[in-house]
């Protein structure tokens, strides 16, 4: 009987430890924008998964490349087939730490998110300034940054050099809700 108590106590302790504060969204938005003399290209993804672990001040993002929607179907096909090679590299991911997590309040403030981003199978260190707030038990994070395509091994053939920007602007908007599991 005593042993049984011990087991229960242990499980309870574990439960308490595991009741970490996690916040998740499955409908995060990421937009990328390429501005060039010949044409502007924009694509939106509204099915981005993002999670914030408040106890560890960590966050992770998972992006399905095929969920980026373009204005022109042919652009979308070329994006997946020729540029990011979605069959080979179906996802882009990010994992990192929210550096000044304690400062997040119910009014928008700047925090730094530092971590590793993987696109097209290539991983880079990255620090992104993010506007964050915590309100009604949800964590909101949004911001934008630039990436250089050649850093991630995405080649642009010379014939379309003038159609695609070398630096792509990535914007994100996540609305994390409490996540229990």
């Amino acid at each position, binding site marked *: 009987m005593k042993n049984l108590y011990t087991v229960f106590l242990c499980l309870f302790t574990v439960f308490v430890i595991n009741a970490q504060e996690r916040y998740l969204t499955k409908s995060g938005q990421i937009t990328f924008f390429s501005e060039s003399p010949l044409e502007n290209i924009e694509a939106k993804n509204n099915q981005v998964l993002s999670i914030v672990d408040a106890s560890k001040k960590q966050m992770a993002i998972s992006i399905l490349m095929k969920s980026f929607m373009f204005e022109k*179907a042919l652009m979308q096909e070329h994006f997946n087939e020729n540029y990011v090679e979605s069959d080979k590299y179906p996802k882009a991911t990010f994992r990192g730490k929210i550096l000044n997590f304690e400062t997040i309040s119910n009014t928008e403030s700047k925090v730094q998110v530092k971590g590793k981003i993987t696109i097209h199978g290539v991983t880079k260190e990255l620090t992104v300034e993010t506007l964050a707030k915590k309100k009604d038990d949800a964590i909101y994070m949004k911001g934008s940054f630039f990436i250089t395509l050649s850093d991630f091994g995405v080649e642009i053939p010379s014939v*379309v050099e003038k159609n695609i920007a070398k630096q792509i602007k990535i914007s994100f908007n996540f609305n994390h809700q409490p996540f229990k599991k």
Partner: protein
Amino acid sequence: MKKILTFTFLTLFSYHLAAQDDLLDLLDAETPETENVVTATFKGTRIVNGHSVENRKNKELEFIIAHRFGAINTGIEDLFGLDISNIRFSFEYGLSDNLTAGLSRASVEKTYEGFLKYSLLKQKTGANSFPVAVSLFGSIAAKSQKAIPGFERSFVESLFYTAQVLIAKKINSSLSFQLTPTYVHRNLTAIFDDPHDIFALGIGTRVKLNKRVSLNAEYFPQFDKLKSIDATNSLAFGIDIETGGHVFQIILANSRRMVEKAFITETTGDFFGGDIHLGFNLSRTF
């Protein structure tokens, strides 16, 4: 003391079992299974001469200029066939994501052609997976060349109909296959022994050499042939080079014809006997 040890051990052990330390693994587990439509089974709307399962998307206009030259084995006098050139212009428009309409004019027999292609089923992976893509193709070709005196024909007698079921499978990102059961009907035959109806089974494939270049092949064995012209089966090889909105196809074929009824049933060349025609398709999508 023993109790404390047991406690510590069990706690650590259970914690280890329950913890999902990696947030990305957790996201993987939370990712809903999505329906994934397989795209780009072929680069272009043609494999070589014949249609591929691909359609133009809604409101996209594709303009195709195609040339086929004379046979290489005509030798230096015709500059290996380059002196003789057939041309075909084609405008193809996406009425919806699944329905494409086309109008074309080919120089041989001054043929006008109209077609509809409908994408019936998509190849899918993930949720609701489906193994193949299926499109339906139908065309009417009208020969407008003036008849030789004594062989006058009515408009209806100048018409040819083609119906195809295109069944394609993208095996992986570099390998695709297509089976194309084909039916060709001609209202008027040259001689009494020629069949009005010809069935053929097209076989096509694409092998991607790199991101923008692929090697295509296509063969159309017929179950019945025209007797009046000693017909052979159409065999063609092509290289697709894609740059942005353009697809450029360089072709070697035993046929100089580009309309379905013509290259499938009216080919007379023997590919391995040297009756090889150089050609190209240049496609621009707006």
